[in-house]
């Protein structure tokens, strides 16, 4: 068995900390079961990738039909980043629209109070 590289120790520790934080958020009722499952899968995959980088990325490259495992990994990482960016974009848009609605309701309510 090959000796472990430093990142193979650091990445799982950091990922485990984030996973624990995800579980804590779920227990506190600040995230949904879907979010818990998504992030649990994400952190477990990160740990697996750090522990078995070659075997996983080689399999991924074969599955995606790419010659290099580095290309496959970059492709997958970009896909995940775009997905998260897209999700964030919608979340911000929604928050903005909720804030405007709230500001509008407040303004109209204040006016009703003045009128009464």
């Amino acid at each position, binding site marked *: 068995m090959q000796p472990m590289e430093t990142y193979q120790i650091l990445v799982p520790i950091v990922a485990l900390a984030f996973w624990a934080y995800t579980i804590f958020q779920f227990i506190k009722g600040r995230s949904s079961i879907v979010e818990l499952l998504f992030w649990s899968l994400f952190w477990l995959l990160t740990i697996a990738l750090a522990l078995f980088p070659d075997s996983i990325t080689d399999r991924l490259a074969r599955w995606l039909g790419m010659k290099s495992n580095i290309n496959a990994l970059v492709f997958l990482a970009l896909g995940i980043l775009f997905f998260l960016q897209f999700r964030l974009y919608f979340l911000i848009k929604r928050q903005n629209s909720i804030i405007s609605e709230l500001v509008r309701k407040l*303004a109209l309510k204040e006016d009703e109070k003045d009128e009464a």
Partner: protein
Amino acid sequence: MNSPKHDNTLIVIPAYNEATHIESLLKKIRQQGFDRILIVDDASEDDTAAIARANGARVIRHVINRGPGAATQSGIEYARMHNYARMVTIDADNQHDPEDIAKLLERLDRGDVDLVIGNRFMRGDNFIPRSRVIYNGIANLITFLFSRHWISDTQSGMKALNRKAIENTQLGTDGFEFCSEWVIKAGLMHLRIAEVPIKVYYTEESRKKGQGFLTGIRTLSSLFHQLLLRH
């Protein structure tokens, strides 16, 4: 007082930091016989709200700045809540001539349209900066692609609405992109649109406040979000 025929007409003025213009604008609107005037103060940092109140306008105030689209929607909701039969929006920076309000209402009262847009390009004597002409052309094209309705001044802030349009208009965008969204949604709701020529006066100040290239980018992104992804 409002002349009796204007009793059911609300003039809505979305305003942000317009203390220097609001008094003269309110006077000019009154001279045209309109007394029901609503200022939607979009969290101005100057005395816009106080001056407007002192000059007899009704003022509703956003606690934080949300943009001209959000302020216009607040005006629409006010008109809806208070059962106004007609509503006219006009810019707060004195670029429009309140004399044109009557022209818009006259067109609306013919009964064959629900939304009348004041068109700045239908008059030959308006001086419109070239940048605005180009921007407006691009915005018209974008609006046409989404709505399949050709309107030659989609970005005009002067509009008149009848009760049907007041009831059905729900703007989702907060910034200047609301102008395009309004035209597109009017089409989706089968509101009938007409345009009438209006005067416009551009000052250095109003040119700075208006729309630019970045607004165009925002318009595209917001329209894409509003009209394609949310429906």
